[in-house]
Each structure stands twice: as structure tokens, then as C-alpha cells.
């Protein structure tokens, strides 16, 4: 055995992998932030622990700097570790998305964490770790690095979901999320092992080549592709793999729910897109119909069930399931040569706008829940009459989620439809019509909340105004400006969607 290892080493001389610390700077800064939070937690006195949130926030913004600098650099691709870790424009755009939405989550959490007698240091540590995992998954171009990053972002998230230790619902949230998440990982890992068996390489680009060069693909490939898509299907809570989402969303602390519904969902999409575009481009005949069905089911089931919810967080949970269906829509035609670019753009644009809108919505939910101490939709009654600003903001975010111009959500839906129709196929047209009908159904529940805000009486007669804490107000401000700006000057979001090209994708 030892001999075999020795001879192997002798055969393949050790070559130092190519590493560009410049391109890795965002990850390095974030890692430093993770360590800093952990150390500071050890040495800070209890009443100074509020500084931890500041450290967490600044390390996210600090990691944003190199992302911007790399984005402005003329060199557009840094390939490291033999193509297993690639920094390209696509990964930079989504890294920026993860870091900024992470920053908003920090702003949303700070009050919550301070008030709740939580283990503060560990909260920030886990949050940053999970974001680091997301940043890594956007560059991972190898089955193993994809899987490692995927676990890296998931495991802290399981713990965050169960953060309210003595709360039964929070425990349920964590356990459900963990069990189904692990199950998904296992399915995915099995799919990956099949793919490795078929392609004899873990490098995604090699996988893609093995499918194209061999001319067609084996049933082994097909099975592997399906399993991998199913694995990510859990992460993006696509129906029928969504069952964990409502309970987890309801039980987890609100800022963590915001994080899960935006950050880790986006990470799931990013990984899925990477796999589809880099590893399985030629297998589109397998995954296109599969994703078509997933997308149609996800938006329809998510919507219909959301209609019946009376708890606002559960409603938003189902709404985010159905939004996931809309994000999947363009991928159902991504294999057509004419629409692959626009599908990628649609996914990225949707993720960006959805992040801004949904985080803002959670900001409003957190602010309102601070006063009403209730998660019921009916507790929002008459919000406009005593907290007009929050009422209007809530309306803006809900309308944006519903896709009503001139708010951000409409352009997200628009580019998704555009991509579908550009394919010129009946698959595309039919899914577009299903999506159109669904966007109407969705207004049923978004409009219901608006109705509470504007048209109903205050349920308990308590009309004391709501005070919004500074950091929460900042989060609301950022998300509102983004939601409005994306809708009125959509070029901003579309620009990021446009430059986000995956290296090794069929486009270039």
C-alpha cells in the first residue's frame, strides 16, 4: 500500500498549483473576518459584544472591495488549481450579490441578535462562514470543490436555523432543514460519483467534454445529471423537494429566514447554473424537460399553497418557493443555442432583484413583528394608518414581488419571459403562459397583505407608532432604493446580468 503511494508520487511529480492571491482576495478577507469575529468574541466584555456585528458587517464590505477591483480589471478570468477554482465575471457578480445580501442580513440581524440573549459571537461566526461557502461555490468548477463549498455553506445554515435553542419551533426548523439537507447532499453525491465514473474526471469542464466528444451520453450520465439536479432542487426548494422550507422558514429567527430564502437559495441556483452550463451543456435533452416540469410545479404549487397561509412568514416562504419556480423558468430552455445567454442573464438578474426585494420585505416583517409580536397576516391590519412609512415600504416590496411595474420585480419576470420566448419553442411558449397565469395568482396573496396594510382596521387598537432601529432603517433604505432603481432604470441590473458569463459555458 505504502509502496503504491510512493510509486504514485514518483510518477506524478509534485507541482505547486497556480494560485493568484489577488483573485482570492475576497475569500481571504472574509476568512480573516471569520477569524476576527471568533477572536474578538473571546476577548470582548459582554457589553461590548455589539462590536461583533460591526466587525461582521465591515468584513463583508471589506471583501466587497476586491470584488469590485477584480471586476474593473481588464483580465476577466483567473483560473486556479488546474481550472478547479475559477474567478470569472459570473462568479464576481454573484460574489458581490452574496456579500451585499450578507451585509443586509447583518443589518437585519443586529437588533434581533442583541435583544434575544443569543450566543452573539457564534451567530456572526456561523453567518460569515456560510457566506464564505457561498462565495466559494460561485468559483467552484470541480465536483469536489462544488460539494465542499456546498457543505460549507449548508452546515452553518442548519445551526443558524436552530438558533433559538429553547424554542421548539426553531429546533424543528433546524432538524428538518438538516435531515432533508443531508439527504439532498447524499443524493447529489451519489449523482456526482456516477458522473465521475462516466467521465473519469471531477473537473466540470472535463465532464462537459466527455458528454460532447463521445457523441451523446450514456444512461450513467443521464442518471448522474438527474441526481445532481435533484440535489440542488432541495437547496432551491423546488417542488417536490420543498417540504422543509415552510417549517424551517417559520421556525428559524426572522433574519436567518431572510438569509436562507435569499442567500442560500441564490447559492443553490448559482451551483445549479454552473453545473448545467459547464458540466452538462450537451445533456440538455435530459435536464431541459426535467427543469420545465420542476419550474411549472414549483411556481404553481408554491402559489396555490401560499394563497391559504395566514402566517406572514409561512406565506413568504411559499412565495419564495414560487419565485424559485420563476427563476428556474429560463433554464428550461437554456439548452437552445439562441437562448442560453439570455437564460443565464435572466437567472442572474432575477437573483439580484429578488435578493433586494425579499430582504426588504423581511426588513418590514421584522420591524412590524417588533411591535405586534405576532406572525399572523391579520396583525398587519391598518399598518398604513399608524406606520405609513412601513406600510408604503411593505407595499413596494410586495408589489415588486408580484412583478408590477415600475418596481424591480417586473424586469426580473420580464427577462425570464423574454428568454423563454426567444427560444421560439413550444416548451418556452407554454411555460411562459403558465408563468403569466401564476404571476396573477401570486397577486392573490401579495394583494391580501396589501389589503391588511391599507384597508383593514388595526386589530388590537394599538396605534402607537413603530420605531425602527438605525441599522434596520439602513437595510430598508438600501433595499428600497435598489428595488425602485432596478424597476425604473433596469439597465443597472441587466448590466450585471449581461457581463456574467460563465467560463467554459457554450457561449464563451
Amino acid at each position, binding site marked *: 500500500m505504502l509502496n503504491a503511494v510512493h510509486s504514485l508520487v514518483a510518477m506524478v511529480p509534485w507541482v505547486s498549483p497556480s494560485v493568484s492571491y489577488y483573485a482570492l482576495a475576497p475569500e481571504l478577507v472574509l476568512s480573516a473576518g471569520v477569524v476576527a469575529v471568533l477572536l474578538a468574541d473571546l476577548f470582548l466584555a459582554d457589553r461590548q459584544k455589539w462590536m461583533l456585528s460591526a466587525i461582521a458587517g465591515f468584513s463583508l464590505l471589506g471583501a466587497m472591495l476586491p470584488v469590485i477591483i477584480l471586476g474593473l480589471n481588464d483580465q476577466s478570468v483567473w483560473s486556479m488549481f488546474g481550472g478547479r477554482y475559477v474567478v470569472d465575471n459570473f462568479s464576481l457578480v454573484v460574489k458581490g450579490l452574496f456579500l451585499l445580501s450578507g451585509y443586509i442580513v447583518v443589518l437585519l440581524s443586529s437588533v434581533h441578535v442583541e435583544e434575544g440573549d443569543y450566543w452573539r459571537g457564534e451567530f456572526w461566526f456561523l453567518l460569515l462562514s456560510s457566506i464564505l461557502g457561498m462565495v466559494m461555490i460561485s468559483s467552484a468548477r470541480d465536483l469536489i470543490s462544488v460539494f465542499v463549498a456546498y457543505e460549507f455553506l449548508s452546515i452553518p445554515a442548519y445551526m443558524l436555523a436552530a438558533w433559538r435553542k429553547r424554542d421548539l419551533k426553531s429546533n424543528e426548523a433546524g432538524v428538518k432543514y438538516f435531515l432533508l439537507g443531508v439527504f439532498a447532499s447524499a443524493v447529489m453525491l451519489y449523482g456526482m460519483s456516477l458522473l465521475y465514473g462516466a467521465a473519469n474526471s471531477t473537473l466540470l469542464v472535463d465532464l462537459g467534454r466527455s458528454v460532447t466528444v463521445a457523441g451523446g451520453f450514456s444512461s450513467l450520465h443521464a442518471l448522474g445529471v438527474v441526481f445532481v439536479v435533484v440535489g440542488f432542487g432541495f437547496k432551491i426548494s423546488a417542488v417536490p423537494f420543498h417540504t422543509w422550507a415552510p417549517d424551517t422558514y417559520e421556525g428559524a429567527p426572522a433574519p436567518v429566514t431572510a438569509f436562507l430564502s435569499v442567500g442560500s437559495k441564490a447559492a443553490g441556483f448559482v451551483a445549479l447554473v454552473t453545473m448545467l452550463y459547464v458540466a452538462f451543456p450537451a445533456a440538455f435533452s435530459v435536464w431541459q424537460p426535467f427543469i420545465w416540469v420542476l419550474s411549472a410545479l414549483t411556481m404553481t404549487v408554491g402559489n396555490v399553497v401560499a394563497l391559504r397561509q395566514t402566517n406572514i412568514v409561512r406565506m413568504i416562504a411559499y412565495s419564495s418557493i414560487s419565485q424559485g419556480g420563476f427563476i428556474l423558468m429560463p433554464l428550461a430552455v437554456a439548452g437552445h443555442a439562441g437562448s442560453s445567454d439570455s437564460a443565464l*442573464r435572466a437567472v442572474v438578474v432575477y437573483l439580484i432583484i429578488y435578493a433586494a426585494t425579499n430582504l426588504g420585505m423581511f426588513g418590514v416583517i421584522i420591524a412590524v413583528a417588533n411591535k405586534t409580536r405576532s406572525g399572523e397576516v391579520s396583525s398587519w391590519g391598518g399598518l*398604513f394608518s399608524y406606520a*405609513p412609512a412601513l406600510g408604503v415600504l411593505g*407595499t413596494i416590496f410586495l*408589489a415588486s414581488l408580484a412583478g*408590477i*411595474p*415600475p418596481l424591480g420585480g*417586473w*424586469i426580473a419576470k*420580464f*427577462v425570464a*419571459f*423574454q428568454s423563454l*420566448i*426567444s427560444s*421560439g419553442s413550444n416548451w418556452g*411558449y407554454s411555460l*411562459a*403562459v403558465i408563468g*403569466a*397565469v401564476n*404571476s*396573477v395568482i401570486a*397577486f*392573490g396573496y401579495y*394583494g391580501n397583505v*396589501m*389589503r391588511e396594510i*391599507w*384597508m383593514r382596521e388595526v386589530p388590537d387598537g394599538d396605534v402607537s407608532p413603530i420605531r425602527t432601529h438605525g441599522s434596520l432603517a439602513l437595510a430598508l433604505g438600501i433595499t428600497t432604493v435598489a428595488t425602485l432603481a432596478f424597476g425604473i*432604470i*433596469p*439597465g443597472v441590473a*441587466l*448590466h450585471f*446580468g*449581461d457581463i456574467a458569463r460563465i467560463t467554459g459555458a457554450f457561449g464563451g
Partner: protein
Amino acid sequence: MEMLRDENWVLSVGTFLPIIGVIALLLVPRADEKLIKLVALATSVATVGVGVYTLFQFNYQQAGKMQFVAETNWISVIKSTYYIGIDGISLPLYFLSMVITLAVVIYSWNNIPAPGNPKAFFILILVLQTGMAGTFVAQDLILFFVFFELVLLPMYFMIGVWGGEQRQYASMKFFLYTMFGSALMLVAFLAVFFKTGAESFSIPYLVEHGGSIAKNVQIWIFAGMFVGFAVKVPMFPFHTWLPDAHTQAPTQGSVILAAILLKLGTYGFVRIAIPILPTAAREWAPYIGALAVVGIIYGALGCLAQTDMKRLIAFSSVAHMGFVMLGISTLTSFGVNAAVYGMVAHGLITGMLFFIAGSMKDRYHTLEISRLGGLLTQMPHLGWILGFASMASLGLPGLAGFWGEFPAILSAYSPAAGLNENVFRVYMVIAAVGTVFAAAYLLWLFQRVAFGEPKAEFADHGTQGDHGEDHTYQDVTTIEWLAWTPLLVAILVFGVLPNLLFKMIDPAVQGVLHAFGG
């Protein structure tokens, strides 16, 4: 198409001025109601001012061409531009929206419906105004769509917050119907875009190239647009949201809804669906015509069955918009001219009727026809205005309604080449019967409401009622006169001098119908 690009700032200013007013209103504290009303009034007066300037600068010799054209990048990635312009079809509707908004703002001076909050109320009205004006000047499908949708939420809140007892149901119904239509419409817009080579969303470009789309594809795309516009018009059988929305909306909401929002649908047919997809339009025309005459008769019968005055007026809208759609479905310049004229006339007249209904409701606290009566003896001015508006609505020659209705019926005698004459002549006869019904329900309404003596419960003029309410019925107030006079004058002027409008509309209609040989 040749464009006139002089003074390209005019339309943008006219469209977005209300938004400036909204921003100003946001800065005014909620308690300062006087200032809020002043800001809203100043904004809408300034908007009408820009509108009047547009009227004067408009080149009527070239009414068929787009004027004041402005074009600049907006969403270049998806090839959509900020592209606006105005021609003889858009101009009357664009200006009408401004006048109606001003009238509504004046009317609201002392008449903010419960639960009050003038700040939010005026903000919604001004946002509505931007959406309406923008829809009439947009020359890019995506821009059109955004403006078209912009009116939805304000109207939803206006009905839902300031409306009657069933307001929440009515507002949701209104919203879901319209949104369903516009979702399919958006898909249709995208399909047109890709089928013409994915070059541009600009309407003139698509008009030029849309005809080359294969016939069966056109028919499908037209179906998507049809649903979007027909819901808005509303055409039978998509009309069921309208009686609820109209009846529950506050007076101001009903007026805006009837006078302008319904026109967005018919305008969409004239500006977008028919010129871009002429082949499909020809295939669809008989069906549109059929639905139009069904709407005429159905609306009229609905009117005869109503016991509530406001609901009656709402149903009469279904009938009147049926005439407009009949005119459009003939695809002749005669018919489309009549349709555009009908849009303006219906906007003025039905807007006026809703104002009257609102004022009567303020005074009697009911619009139950069986409880009303003797309006002419109790409030003679209001009674005569109601008579005037009813006569105009039933299409009395000499008032504006006539010129929308009569030519529309006449145009069905000889529809465009390729359409079955016999079918359209049948439509013509049915529509003519519809006018008889119209006379019946309007005269009957007027007779029941205005003639005779006031009913016992309202007869105690000038005394206190059982519950302490004031029964002093004040005739038309100064504020009401101010708000209504422009509409009343316009109804008369456009009735006597139809050519004022026709000479503006006609050249533009020729352009729209050039695919049908004029």
C-alpha cells in the same frame, strides 16, 4: 414614418409633472390638509397648462404624424427605448386625461371620501395621471406596458381604501382581472418582438414589420393582446369586474376609471394590436364585432335591470364601449374615427354622470333609484345637469355622444375589404336596436330620479332628519360648478362642432389603417 421632433421636452414634462407633485406632497406633513390640496391643485393646473401648450403647438396639418417625438436610451440591453410621441389619436385622449384629473382634484376639495387622508388620496390621483398620460404617448411596447400597469395599484388602493362597502372584494377583482390580461399581453408583446427579428420594441418599427409574421402566428399573438385590452375595455365576457369596481369606487375613482382607464384598452387596439397584426385583425374582426354587439345589448339589458343608479351608469359603460369596439372592428377609417370620437365623448359624458351620481350620493346617502325622485324640484340645477348628461349619453344629435355612436353603427354597413358584409350588417341592426334600449334606460332613469315629487323620506327639505342628519339639500355648489363646467361645455362643443376632433383624428386613423387600404 416621418417624425416631427421639435420641442421634444413637452410630452415628458406633461407626463411626469404629476410625479413632481407627488414628491412635493410627500414632503408636506399629513396634518396640513390645506397645503396638500393646494399642492395637488397647483400640480394638476400646471399639468393642464402643459397640455394646453401642447394643444397650441401641435401641428394640425400634420396630425397623422408623430409629433414632439423624444427618443432616448432606456433599457438598451433588451432593445427597449424611452420613445414617446403624439398624434391626432393620442392628443385628445392625452389632454382629456389631464382635464379629468384636474376636475377630480377640484371636486375633491371638499369631498375627500371616508376615511379621509387627502395626502395619500391626491398622491394616488397624481400617480394615476402619469400612468394614463404616459400610456397615450408611449411609442415603445415596453414603455407602454409599464405605464399601462402603473395605473393598476393606485386604482386598487383607491377602490379598496376609499370605496363603498364591498370595496375589498371589488378592488381585488378589478386587480386580478386586469393583471391576468396584462400578463398575457406582455407575453404577446415579447412574441411580436421575437417574430419581427428581435430588433426593437418601438411601435412604428413593429407596425412596419409586423405584417410579415405568418398568419397563424399572428392570430395567436393577437389573442394574447386581445385578452389584455379586452379586459380593460371591458368587452363582454370580460366585463364582470366593471360593475363592482365602478359601484364600489369613490366618485373620483369611478370618474377616472370610466373617463380614462377604459380607454386604455380601446386605445391599445387602435394603436397596437390592429396596426401591428393586420392579418390577424382581419381574422378576429368578426368575432370582436360580435362580442361588441353582445356587449351593447347585454349592457343595455343590464341597465334596465339595475336598481342602483351608479351600477346602472356602470352597465351603460359596457354598452357604450361596445359601440366603440364595433367601430374598431369594422377596420374602416370611418369606424375607427367614430371609435376614437366615441372614446372622448364617453369619457366626458360618463365621467360627468359619475360626478352627478357622486354628488347625489353625498346629499341623499343613497343611490337606490326607487327611493329617489323629484330631483328637479329639489335641486333644479343638478337635475338639469343630469338631464343634459343623460341626453348626451343616449346619443342625442347635437351633443358629443351622437358622433361616437351614430357613425359607429353606420360604419358597420360597409366594413373593410375582406370582411363579410352581411355579418356586419346584422351587427349594425343589433347595435341600432341597442340605441333604442339606451334611450329607454336613460330616459327611464331620468324620469324616475328627476321627475315627480321627492319621496317622503327626502321631502322634509331644510329640516333635521331622525338621526340628526342635515336634510338641507344644497344645489350644485361652486366647487362642483368649477369642476363640471369644462366637461359640460366640451360635451356641447364637440356635439355641435364634431369636426374639431375629426379633422385631428382622421389623418392619424389613416396611418393606423394603412395596411387595410385606408
